[in-house]
């Protein structure tokens, strides 16, 4: 079985701090990690490989700047067989659709794959759109919010955690799934994996390698444009009640709960 895992390098949100004056997030120069849910996708692929070691290959693909090879290397150290970086200055400014076009082209070039896995969403953009967009561009069946996964005769059976319950679906190969945290517990990289990852070659592919014209990717290939970025101030005017005034504070809170009709 050939499995592709789509990953994204995202800022490490444990590492960000607030600008106390402006009340905004400081992101510059901070660490980068593999998007946490993408690690669940990778773990699912590795679990399938353990189940079917014969002929199973796990390829990890990421679109991003050159430094995103770090994220691919981390996936290799966890046990992925190969990593492919999709990077090109012309990819800059891609919206989810343009990103989907690059990933779909790379999947076609590097495949065929039976199964494509990705995290349900990334912690930075939080759109959750790229997975379904890639599936639509490849015209393959897909499912989302996957919290359970088993192989079932030429395809997969999945559990989707959605509002009000769990839906079970069966999909034939090839198909694409986006996964949730509940699916598994990603393992830590092993020392051996780290060594192997350090030596591994991670090829880079650009738009021309993927047969994409500059009009199809990046800002030009995007349908949406960010026209304004605002940094809302988060600080509120806090009514503080400390020692000696706690009862007063509790009374005030009870009154507010009544006002807001939650009591």
């Amino acid at each position: 079985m050939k499995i592709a895992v789509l990953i994204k390098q995202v800022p490490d949100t444990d590492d960000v701090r607030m600008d106390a004056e402006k009340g905004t997030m400081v992101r510059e120069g901070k660490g980068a990690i593999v998007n946490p849910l993408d690690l669940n996708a990778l773990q699912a692929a590795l679990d399938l490989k353990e189940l079917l070691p014969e002929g199973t290959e796990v390829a990890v693909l990421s679109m991003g700047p050159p430094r995103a090879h770090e994220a691919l290397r981390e996936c290799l150290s966890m046990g992925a067989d190969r990593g492919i970086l999709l990077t090109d200055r012309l990819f800059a400014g891609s919206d989810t659709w343009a990103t989907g076009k690059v990933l779909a082209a790379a999947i076609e070039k590097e495949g065929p794959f039976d199964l494509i896995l990705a995290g349900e969403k990334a912690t930075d953009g939080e759109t959750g759109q790229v997975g379904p967009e890639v599936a639509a561009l490849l015209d393959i069946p897909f499912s989302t919010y996957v919290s359970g996964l088993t192989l079932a005769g030429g395809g997969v059976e999945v559990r989707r955690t959605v509002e009000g319950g769990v839906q079970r679906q069966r999909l034939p190969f090839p198909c694409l799934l986006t996964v949730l945290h509940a699916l598994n517990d990603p393992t830590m990289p092993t020392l051996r994996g780290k060594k192997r990852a350090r030596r591994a070659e991670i090829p880079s592919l650009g738009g021309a390698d993927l047969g994409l014209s500059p009009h199809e990717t990046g800002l030009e290939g995007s349908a949406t444009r960010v026209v304004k970025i605002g940094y809302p101030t988060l600080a509120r005017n806090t009514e503080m009640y400390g020692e000696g005034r706690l009862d007063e504070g509790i009374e005030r809170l009870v009154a507010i709960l009544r006002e807001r009709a939650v009591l």
Partner: protein
Amino acid sequence: MADKRRSKEKFFVVGEVRRGRLAPLCRELAGKARQLADSAGGEVTVILLSDRLAEDPETLFSSGADRVMVVEHPSLALYNQEIETNVLAFLLKKENPAVVLAGATTSGRTTLPALAARLETGLTADCTGLEMEEETGQLLQTRPAIGGNVMATIRTPSHRPQMATVRPRTFPLPPASERQGEVLFPWIPPSLFESRVENLGFEEGDEGGGNIQDMDVVVSGGKGLKRPDGFGMLRELAALLGGGVGASRPVVDAKWIDYPHQVGLSGKVVAPKVYIAAGISGSVQHMAGMQTAEFVAAINRDPEAPIFRVADLGLCGDLFEILPRLIERIREEKRKP
């Protein structure tokens, strides 16, 4: 664009039907679409896909719809991403709308991206603000990113339709109007109801976290609770207020409580009417998951705890004294007639 405006611009809402009933977001989005359409002289259509509607689709006229398109088919009994995408792509290609809105529910966030790719257009996720720009007649789509630390306003300049998903309960439900409209039953090619995705069933129940994203009140705890059983007090308080229990990441990592309760960037982003944080100092990643709550109360013994900066009311002291007193006072209040 101006030359294309001879006929009325069309504003579409992809409704959501669960077991025959219209989800409240149908009315919410019909109302929002009405507002947008009025500023552009357009008309509003709501599409409803289900196996069998148990509710009168005409009720949506009073929320702002001019037309309701009803598609009923046995294959739509359970959500099927492929069939929904097929049917919507077929209808929207014919109708060529200016704007398409849908709920940012698990189904909306699944169908709409596939639909947008099929229609070769853009899509903006989880919008909290939508308005028509006067000069251009384009839809301005505002969405939070990084848990609300950044607000991005996005436009779809030259692709149509302009598509957006909206988190349920973002906009107020529209007041009822006297509007009348028409209900349509469009013909759909039967092959579009065939799917490679097979539905095997649906088991009701929550994932264990009590769906805290849908709650009006969320009471969350962190390391300040000192022990896993500290959550007992929070459960009691949450139950009294009809709310759910949340948690910071460190206590989830320490396995004091399950992941579905985790509030923050790597857990759930919640925006309840009231958020109460007890024993949570307030990491950026936690605050990004709750700072858009309407009202925030924080209980912490450290007056310098960052959580107080995003709180409307701060109780600075020992939570093991404060919480029992608060619970007792709420009990008394509830006993009052």
